[in-house]
């Protein structure tokens, strides 16, 4: 008896059509990219009992277990339940029945750099924020990519996401603690943006140049630079890889608080729902906004968002990217129903 599979349904269930006939693969989310080792045994069991004993580590910090017979979807989902419970339900994601597997796969795993659990440069616990974000945006079927990075080094490649969240601190200068050693000036000039200079044997900061990386704090031998109480974020948006027009994300919000970032990202879904080209199999959020324009986007995502007082909002977006053909965005059919 030949298999009869509803591709749309199994895709939402985080399974996929693969190159091999009758074989599927399950994609496991690891929000924030940090996993308790106890879950390895579940992943191993699925791979060994239903797959080929191997697992692929995805670029988004999840796992993809290949070579599973479509007929074992139910069994695999049952085995996944403790993992879904532990990684999703326990952090507040609302999933009706974890035994049925993942309820959606549109929004991709929220990836995060290792963050301040380990990294000295990180301005926050990025995994924690990923978990917070996960419950706000998952389950959801629209294809949106989010990544969180602890500092502007952007080790997670937030610049290639629809929403890249970059952790920042606003260094506070304690004038009397400064010995004018210029360690901060040196690092800012050589490795960052040159926001600092020595003036009257103390430090002068060009606030417009500061990207909140915190290098000055790390280098200061007298703690004359300390972290701000609040953690801030730069929200860079609409970066992408992809065939048509790869490009780096660009800054939409600077010095935003966590609340603002979460609300803005939540607001994207109503906009996508309203504007997406339903005639297409899928339309990537970046191309939707290319089509409807920045001002429409801006009005929609900032709707009902109370902006923090430190925030700066982009007036326009300038992207660094390229097309394979110059006229790729031109209407190739001059007499079509434009």
């Amino acid at each position, binding site marked *: 008896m030949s298999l009869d599979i509803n591709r749309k349904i199994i895709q939402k269930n985080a399974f996929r059509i693969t190159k091999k006939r009758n074989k599927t693969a399950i994609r496991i989310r690891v929000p924030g990219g940090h996993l308790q080792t106890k879950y390895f045994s579940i992943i191993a069991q699925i791979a060994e009992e239903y797959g080929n004993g191997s697992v692929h580590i995805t670029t988004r910090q999840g796992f993809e277990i290949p070579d599973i017979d479509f007929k074992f979807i139910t069994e695999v989902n049952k085995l996944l339940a403790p993992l879904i419970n532990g990684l999703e339900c326990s952090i507040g994601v609302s999933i009706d029945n974890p035994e049925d597997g993942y309820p959606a796969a549109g929004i991709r795993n929220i990836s995060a750099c290792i963050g*301040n659990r380990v990294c*000295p440069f990180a301005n926050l616990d990025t995994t924690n924020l990923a978990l917070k974000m996960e419950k706000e945006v998952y389950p959801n079927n629209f294809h949106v990519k989010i990544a969180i990075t602890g500092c502007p080094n952007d080790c997670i490649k937030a610049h290639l996401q629809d929403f890249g969240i970059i952790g920042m601190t606003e260094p506070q200068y304690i004038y009397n603690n400064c010995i*004018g050693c210029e360690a901060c000036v040196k690092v800012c000039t050589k490795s960052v943006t040159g926001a600092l200079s020595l003036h009257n044997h103390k430090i002068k900061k060009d606030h417009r140049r500061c990207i909140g990386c915190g290098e000055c704090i*790390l280098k200061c*031998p*007298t*703690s004359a630079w*300390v*972290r701000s109480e609040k953690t801030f974020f730069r929200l860079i948006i609409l970066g992408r890889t992809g065939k048509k027009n790869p490009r780096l994300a660009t800054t939409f919000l600077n010095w935003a608080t966590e609340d603002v970032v979460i609300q803005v990202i939540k607001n994207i879904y109503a906009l996508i729902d309203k504007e997406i080209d339903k005639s297409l199999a899928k339309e990537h959020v970046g191309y939707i906004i290319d089509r409807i324009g920045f001002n429409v986007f801006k009005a929609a995502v900032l709707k009902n968002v109370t902006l923090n007082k430190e925030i700066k909002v982009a007036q326009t977006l300038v992207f660094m990217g390229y097309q394979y053909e110059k006229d790729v965005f031109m209407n190739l059919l001059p007499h079509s129903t434009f």
Partner: protein
Amino acid sequence: MKKNITKEEFNKIFNLLSEYYNVYAPVKKKGDGAFSNTDIIYYEKVTNYDDIEWNEKSTYSPKDIIFPISQTIMNFTYDQVYVPDIKSIKPIYILMRPCDINGIKRLDEIFLRNGVEEDFYYKRLREKVFFALIECVDGFENCFCVSMNANKSSDWDFAISNNKHQSLISIEINEVKNSKIKNIFESLFSTNTTNNNSNNSNNSNNNDNFEIFYPEKNFKKVTLPNVEEMPSFIYTDSKLWDEYKERCIACGRCNTTCVTCSCFSTNDLHYDDNPNVGERRRVWASCHIPKFSLMAGGHDMRKDNASRMRFKTFHKIYDYKKRFGEEKNHMCVGCGRCDDNCPEYISFSTIINKLSARLISKEKI
């Protein structure tokens, strides 16, 4: 006079003391560490027991209370020179562990007894400062105060111990010193204990006969070089110093956290708003940070980080004693803050041990 007191009583003493003194003690500053979500401990003004970090070593030493990081020494207004006064600063009590008390004594030697005359700015603050001891029993990971003979001090007006009694704080007043705290303490307790022994049920059970302990042993032990005169080969011994050319990044944290580092630079400036008004300022200097030994004209006497490491090492465990006399201790008090804070994990105690071992092995050859 020794007494076990409650936290409430301690705070009462604090309140009375605060009328006359600013009390400085180690305070944990949440989130002020260099790395995100980390803390730092430094000396700050405190007003009650719970302000104080009793259990951990402070990241920075208390020296900046007497030798501020950045201090205006003269104000200039057109052709007038003014010395800012410190009349408004109250006398100060600093609550310190024994190594730090000894560390301040080392600063006294440099600022008050080295060179031609006493240092005006140090002395006028130092005269306002009185010591209180925080009992230190076990020390911490990188301490080597015992090796440096800086583990004990009797130069305190009162000592505080949190180790004698589960719920009470043990205080000993130094009878030898005629201090304000002694008067406060006497007015609160000495009459109390004789008259109200029966009322004060708390006290009858307490053994007020405790001893203040000092560290007798550290995890780290250093062997000091046992030579009259440093042989000249050791200054340029590449086996000993060369690794620090690369390992040391010249950040200066070992100097800024050290209780005995006393070097400073003098800077002049005028204010942006009025070029006729400005100041002369004294700011901490560090022998590891570039420009310390740079002469006008561009010649630097110690350019590489290895020679700076050698300079600091000898300064701390050889030169000082050589200059001020055999009966003195070395400058280093073994507080271990340099080791606690080196971002490159350079251990000063290891350097001292390596130096001593090198001297012995070379002697044999």
